C-alpha cells in the first residue's frame, strides 16, 4: 500500500476489485437492457421494469424458497422451472403494459404523463408483490447451483458467472438482432422517428408490445437473479434498479453497448471503493463519491453528446 497525492492506494486489491466489479455489473446490466429497450420504442423511462423485477424476485421466492428450519419441506417448484415461470410472468406483464401504452388512448400522451403512468405501475406491482407474498428478507438459492470458481485468487460463484454470461450474450444477441433483422430495423426506425415509421407501414403497436414483452421477461429474469444476490430486501432491489437507471442514463437510454460499458464502469468503481483499493472508506463517503462521479459523467455526456455518434452506428 502506498499514498498517491494524499490518497491511499492498495495495488494488490485491484485484481479482486476488477473481478468482483465485473460480476456486480451483471446485476445492473440486465435491468439496464430492459430500460434501454423500452426507451427505444417509447422515449420514456420504463419504471415499470423495476416493478416487474420486484414481482420476479418475490414470485421466485414464493416458488423456490425452502427454510432450512423446515426439515423435509419441499419448494413449490424446482429452481429452473420456477425461473422459467417467472420469466413467462414478466413477459406477460410487460406485454400487458405495452398493450396499454401503445393503445389508442395513450399513444399520443405526452412523455411526462407516460412516465408518471410507468411510475404508477411500478408502485402498484411492488405493492401487490409485497402484499400478496409477504417475505422476510431472505436470499433464495441460485437457479444455477452453488459451485464456486477461483479467478486470480478471487472466489466467484457460478451465479455471478452465469449473470455476466447471460448479460453479455443478451447484449450481443440484441445488437445483432437490432442491426441485422427486420424486427430490429423496425425498432430502430421507431426509435429514430415514430411518425415516419408509422407512415412507412411499420406496425407500431405490435412492435411496441413485443419489445415491452421481451423487456418484461428480461426484467423478471433480473428479479430471479436478484433473489439470489440481494434477496427479498426492497431497499436492496431498489438500489440495484437505481444503479441500472444510472447505467442507462450513461448510455443515453438508447445505446446497449454504452449501457454495458456503464455497467462495467459502475460495477468496478463501486467494488474497488468497497474493497478498499483507495483505502478504507465509510459507506456514506463511498456513495457520495459514486454519486458525484455519476453526476459529472451525465453532465459530460450531455455536454459533448458522444451518444449520437454511437447511435448512428446502430449500437
Amino acid at each position: 500500500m502506498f499514498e498517491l497525492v494524499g490518497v491511499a492506494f492498495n495495488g494488490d486489491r485491484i485484481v479482486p476489485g476488477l473481478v468482483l466489479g465485473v460480476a456486480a455489473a451483471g446485476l445492473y446490466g440486465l435491468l439496464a437492457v430492459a430500460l434501454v429497450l423500452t426507451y427505444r420504442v417509447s422515449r420514456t423511462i420504463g419504471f415499470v421494469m423495476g416493478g416487474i423485477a420486484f414481482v420476479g424476485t418475490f414470485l421466485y421466492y414464493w416458488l423456490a424458497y425452502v427454510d432450512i428450519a423446515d426439515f423435509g419441506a419441499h419448494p413449490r417448484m424446482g429452481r429452473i422451472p420456477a425461473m422459467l415461470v417467472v420469466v413467462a410472468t414478466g413477459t406477460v406483464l410487460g406485454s400487458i403494459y405495452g398493450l396499454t401504452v401503445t393503445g389508442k388512448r395513450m399513444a399520443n400522451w405526452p412523455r411526462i404523463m407516460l412516465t408518471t403512468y410507468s411510475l404508477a405501475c411500478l408502485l402498484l406491482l411492488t405493492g401487490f408483490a409485497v402484499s400478496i407474498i409477504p417475505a422476510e428478507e431472505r436470499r433464495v438459492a441460485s437457479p444455477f447451483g452453488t459451485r464456486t470458481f477461483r479467478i486470480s485468487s478471487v472466489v466467484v460463484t457460478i451465479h455471478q458467472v452465469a449473470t455476466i454470461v447471460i448479460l453479455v450474450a443478451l447484449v450481443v444477441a440484441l445488437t445483432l438482432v437490432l442491426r441485422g433483422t427486420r424486427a430490429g430495423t423496425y425498432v430502430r426506425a421507431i426509435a429514430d422517428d415514430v411518425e415516419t415509421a408509422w407512415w412507412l407501414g411499420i406496425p407500431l403497436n405490435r412492435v411496441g408490445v413485443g419489445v415491452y414483452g421481451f423487456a418484461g421477461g428480461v426484467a423478471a429474469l433480473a428479479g430471479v437473479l436478484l433473489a439470489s444476490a440481494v434477496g427479498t430486501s426492497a431497499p436492496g432491489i431498489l438500489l440495484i434498479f437505481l444503479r441500472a437507471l444510472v447505467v442507462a442514463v450513461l448510455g443515453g437510454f438508447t445505446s446497449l453497448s454504452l449501457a454495458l460499458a456503464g455497467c462495467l464502469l459502475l460495477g468496478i468503481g463501486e467494488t474497488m471503493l468497497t474493497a478498499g483499493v483507495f483505502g478504507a472508506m465509510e459507506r456514506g463517503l463511498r456513495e457520495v463519491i459514486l454519486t458525484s462521479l455519476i453526476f459529472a459523467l451525465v453532465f459530460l455526456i450531455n455536454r459533448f453528446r458522444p451518444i449520437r455518434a454511437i447511435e448512428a452506428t446502430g449500437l
Partner: protein
Amino acid sequence: MNTTNVPRTTSFLRRAGWPRGTVGPIEMGYAAVAAAAVLWGLFAAKFWVFTTTVALLLAISALGLTAVVGWAREMSLVQAGLTGTAVYVGGYAYRSQGGWGWPFLLAVACAVVVAVLLSLLVALATVRLSGIYILVLTLALQMTIEQTVFVERKLTGGLRPLSTPRPEIIGISFVSDRAFFFLCLGVLGVMLLLLARLRASRHGRALMLVGTDRQAAASVGISPWRYKMFAFAVAGFFAGVAGAFTAPLFGTPPSPLSYLSLNSLFYLAIPVLAGFQCLLGVVLVAVAFGLAPQALEPWHISPLILGGAGLLAGTLAGRSGISGVVSNLLRVRRRQRATAELDVRDGAGRTLDEEKAFAFSGEER
C-alpha cells in the same frame, strides 16, 4: 333587510346580505375544511388526532412538491429523502440528550436550511438537463441520502432510543397530541397561504410560464434555470418545515424506512392525483393518503398500492387532477343553477322550457 327578491337557489350567505364576490366556493371550501379540522382536533380519538398530524405534515411536504411538479413541470423523486433528512437533522439540533439542544425554532431553521441546500444541490446539477435526467438524478440523490444520512446513528438513533421532546413556543406548551395537532394545523395554514401568495405573485407566474413554455419565458427576460432552481428551493423549504415538525411529533426518531425512494413516489402521487390548480385539493389528498393506510390496516393493503392507484388516477384525470374534475362538476352545477334562475319567468315558477311547453299546450292562462 329585504331578502324577498333574492331567489331561494342562492347561497345562505347571499340571502343573509353578504356582498357578492367576497366569498366564493373556494373560500367556502377552505373555511369548511378548517372548521372540520378544528372539530376533528377537539373531538376525535387521540390515535386519529396523532395520525392526522402525520398526514398534515405529509401535506406540507407535498405542497412543496407542487411547485416543482405542477408549476415548473419537472419530476422530483427526492422529496421523501429531503423530508427525512430534515426530520433527523432537526431532531438532532433540537434534542438536548445526544444532540445540540438548540431552541426549537432555531432547530427548525437548521433543518430547513439543510433541506434547501440539498435541494439546490440537485437543482444546480440538473437544471440545464432535460426532464428524464432530472428524474434519474433526483432519484440518485435520494439513494445517496439513504446511504449517508439515514445510516448515521447519531441522527437516527439506530438501536439506541433517543428522545426528542415536544416543543414549547413563546410559553405555550405543545406536549399533548391535540396541542401539537393544532400547532401543525396552524403551520399548514401559514404554508398554504404562503404558497397561494407565491403563486399569485410575479415570481409564481414567471415560474408557471417557465413550466409551460421555457422559450417564451426566456424571450420575455425570465431566466428558466433560475426559476427552476427557485422551484426546487421551494420544495426543499417545505420538506424542511415538514421534517422539522415531524421530529418532535414521534418523540423518538422515526424509522428511515418511512423516507425511502418508494416513499418519494408516494409523495409524488399526491400532487399528481390532486391536480396542480387547487392547493386545498393537495392538502385533502395528502390527508387521505395519510389516514388511508391506518384505516385500511385490517385488510393489509400496502400503502404502495394506494400510492400507485393515486398516481394512476391522477394520470388518467390529466393535469387538473381530481380537484379539477370536482371543480368542473361544481362549475357545471353552478351554471345549471344560474340558468335555472334566469329561466324563471312567472309566479308559477315555470322555466323557459316549461313556458314554451305551456304556450303550445293551448291552455288558457
